[in-house]
């Protein structure tokens, strides 16, 4: 619980808030990139080096690009005239606040039960690699399947059939 943590947390939350609140979609996408980066930093501060870098590589390097491409493909960078928030935004905020209240309450009331000082786990990439083709081999193959399916699905959905109707 250091200054660093608060700083990173603040960046993350600010990024997230900006992503939700900003009008221009591309700005939202850039803000969410900051939030992703903040979460990556949180991973790093939790000694999950590999996960942190993977987060940067996948989220900032790929998902963010995907999002901005999607925005440009749908002319999303124009700010709509009739507001960016849905008419039922108050309900949405209420639900989100309620969820946060419940979770926050749960966190504050329960975490004290967990031991405070865990040893710094020394996990190398090697360990992850061994685990991946060891005990996690089934999830690995399932993920491969999922990714392939996702490729096929996403491509079919997003592809513009030549000569097809609009």
């Amino acid at each position, binding site marked *: 619980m250091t200054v660093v943590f608060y700083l990173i947390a603040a960046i993350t939350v600010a990024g997230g808030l900006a992503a939700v609140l900003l009008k221009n979609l591309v700005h939202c996408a850039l803000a969410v990139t900051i939030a992703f980066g903040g979460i990556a930093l949180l991973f790093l501060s939790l000694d999950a080096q590999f996960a942190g870098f993977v987060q940067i590589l996948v989220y900032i390097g*790929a998902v963010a690009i995907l999002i901005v491409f999607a925005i*440009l493909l749908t002319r999303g960078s124009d700010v709509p005239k009739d507001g960016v928030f849905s008419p039922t935004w108050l309900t949405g905020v209420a639900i989100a606040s309620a969820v946060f209240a419940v979770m926050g309450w749960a966190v504050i009331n329960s975490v004290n039960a967990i031991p405070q000082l865990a040893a710094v786990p020394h996990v190398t990439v090697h360990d992850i*690699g061994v685990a*991946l*083709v060891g005990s996690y*081999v089934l999830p*690995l193959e399932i993920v491969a399947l999922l990714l392939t399916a996702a490729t096929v699905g996403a491509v079919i959905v*997003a592809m513009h059939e030549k000569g097809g109707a609009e």
Partner: protein
Amino acid sequence: MASNPYFSLAVLFLAALGFGLAPLGMAWLWAKVFSPAKPNPIKNAIYECGLVSKGDAWVQFRSAYYLYAIIFLIFDVEAVFLLPFAVAFTGLGVAACVSMLIFVLMLIEGLAWAWAKGVLTWA
């Protein structure tokens, strides 16, 4: 604290940020003191070969970009799984390698499918 590798990275980050911002600040200061910026509508218009720009640049793009991004994303994720495997590779047995081979082949299958489907043909 200082032995933490992230400390070095943070220092480097700050230094790099400074490296980027300091000259911009200097340039700003120079403009402020000596060389006042004189913006005007013609100068600050979009450059388009010396003509008045017609239409907006922010137009709708084509899905080809997105399709490549999808495949890139998939391979990026694949690389994320490949790297720890590669690190452990020297100590692994054939079975482990075969499981990874299946993983890779499955993704290659996706690539091959996309290839056959013509996704990899830039419009």
